[in-house]
């Protein structure tokens, strides 16, 4: 009998737990530890942030589902990691602290045979002075509560515009090393369309601000893609969309301070500038949770497990951009020091960025961090679960399932406006996610055909279909496993 503990119930944690439960017999225990009571389908938060979906439509409570499916659940947060146990506990364990109910504040040692760290990122708002959702006219769509607040702020602004007030809207990244440009890209296009729907578009100046060197970088170094009968660069495609929607852009911008209605940033030229706004949605930087780890003698071994995020089977040797390769990227997401610990999704420490690193003339790093959200999170979580299942069933370590981001395709179905007949979507697929410049030297490291873009109503329908399909899958309804990650 094995006990598998899954930390986190986001996309990677929930995917791992559900596959483990489906494929392992009841004699094996699957336990999820998460401070969150609800599962949320994060990609639909942008629609909550424009008031076209309620947060209830994108979430459901975890406890009843887990009870029904015989998955253990503790609403608690991880505090410290003890992969060798300690003087009183022989088994490896995670110290967790309950966050609600009678046990709130109580700590407990949760032992495990296998540990999956699916804790995702810490939304590191404090890394940017003054960036705090709901204050200084800044908002976020990173969680459903943030998205609810964003809609309240936007709705109030729309009412002011209807009264004749001219406004400025700023959307993008709120830190020099932020990631998740895709979410901000979706939000800016949705906001723009909503302003047109409310007939106040002419009252707002909309500006994109980002740490990307070029539009369409998305933390993936941009891409060369097929678009209809043409082959174009992603920055050309996104420029075309922004020109069409009359959206201005500021690039290479590391936002470093927020004051009420003023964003301070440094650009790659080393200039310190400001941008004023009446409403801003800025994605914060992501960081690890700052977990500590200890060996059985209580010595600090944090550097064996964490490098900000969790250390896995990546090549972390520092080297210049020209020497980066897809082989640097992890394949099994297994910690090299403790083979029964895995970190799929955003929880693993990437070996380096995907985009070419750039510094301002003052030496400030202004480079998008690599994205691992959504689909890669689901795929890596499933392969980790499959390897653990094989290991348990075979009685010896099995790492047969592999999934490097350098040998994995991804789809980014970006909403560009909500509406059954008036909506729009920008559908972009990339293969592979991390460009392989040796395999595809003439096409910017990616396979044309499998890397393509499409704009239109069908993209919106596809995004909406994925919303319903993935919530169905997450609820573990009949034949849920037939829907791929």
């Amino acid at each position, binding site marked *: 009998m094995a006990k598998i503990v899954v930390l986190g119930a986001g996309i990677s944690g929930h995917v791992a737990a559900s596959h483990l439960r489906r494929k392992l017999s009841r004699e094996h225990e699957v336990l999820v530890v998460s401070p969150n009571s609800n599962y949320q389908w994060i990609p639909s938060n942008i629609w909550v942030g424009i008031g076209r979906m309620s947060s209830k439509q994108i979430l459901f409570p975890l406890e009843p589902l887990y009870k029904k499916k015989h998955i253990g659940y503790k609403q608690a947060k991880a505090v410290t990691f003890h992969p060798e146990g300690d003087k009183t506990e022989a088994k490896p364990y995670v110290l967790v602290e309950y966050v609600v109910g009678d046990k709130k504040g109580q700590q407990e040692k949760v032992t495990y045979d296998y540990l999956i760290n699916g804790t995702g990122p810490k939304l590191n708002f404090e890394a940017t002075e003054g960036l705090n959702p709901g204050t200084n006219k800044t908002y976020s769509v990173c969680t459903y509560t943030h998205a609810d607040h964003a809609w309240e702020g936007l709705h109030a602004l729309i009412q002011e515009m209807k009264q004749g007030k001219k406004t400025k809207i700023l959307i993008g990244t709120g830190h020099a090393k932020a990631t998740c440009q895709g979410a901000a890209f979706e939000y800016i296009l949705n906001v723009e369309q909503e302003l047109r729907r409310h007939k106040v578009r002419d009252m707002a100046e909309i500006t994109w601000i980002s740490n990307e060197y070029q539009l369409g970088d998305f933390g993936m170094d941009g891409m060369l893609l097929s678009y209809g009968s043409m082959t174009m660069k992603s920055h050309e495609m996104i420029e075309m969309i922004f020109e069409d929607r009359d959206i201005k852009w500021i690039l290479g911008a590391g936002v470093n301070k927020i004051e009420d209605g003023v964003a301070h940033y440094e650009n790659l030229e080393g200039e310190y500038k400001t941008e004023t706004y009446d409403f801003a949605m800025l994605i914060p930087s992501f960081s690890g949770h700052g977990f500590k780890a200890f060996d059985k003698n209580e010595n600090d071994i944090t550097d064996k497990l964490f490098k900000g995020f969790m250390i896995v089977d990546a090549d972390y040797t520092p080297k210049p951009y020209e020497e980066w390769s897809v082989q640097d990227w992890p394949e099994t997401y297994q910690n090299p020091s403790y083979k029964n610990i895995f970190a799929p999704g955003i929880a693993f420490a990437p070996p380096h960025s995907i985009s070419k690193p750039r510094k301002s003339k003052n030496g400030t790093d202004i480079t998008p961090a690599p994205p691992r959200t959504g689909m890669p999170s689901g795929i890596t979580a499933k392969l980790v679960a499959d390897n653990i299942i094989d290991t348990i069933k075979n009685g010896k370590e099995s790492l047969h399932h592999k999934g490097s981001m350098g040998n994995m395709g991804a789809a980014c179905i970006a909403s560009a406006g909500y509406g059954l007949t008036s909506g729009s979507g920008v559908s972009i*697929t990339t293969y592979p996610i991390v460009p392989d410049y040796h395999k595809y030297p003439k096409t910017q490291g990616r396979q044309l055909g499998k890397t393509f873009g499409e704009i239109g109503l069908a993209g919106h329908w596809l995004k909406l279909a994925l919303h319903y399909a993935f919530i169905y899958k997450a609820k573990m309804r009949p034949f849920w496993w037939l829907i791929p990650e």
Partner: protein
Amino acid sequence: MTQRISKYQRFKMMNPILQFFKFIYLSIKVLIIVAGGHGGTRQVN
């Protein structure tokens, strides 16, 4: 110079009938790319 979306392109992008077929095409194409498998990169035959 930045490409512009022409009126004809916009018509095609927003026409529900054309987009219905595009939706089917996109769904299949995305499924093939995404579910088409993944693997390692360190052992190249």
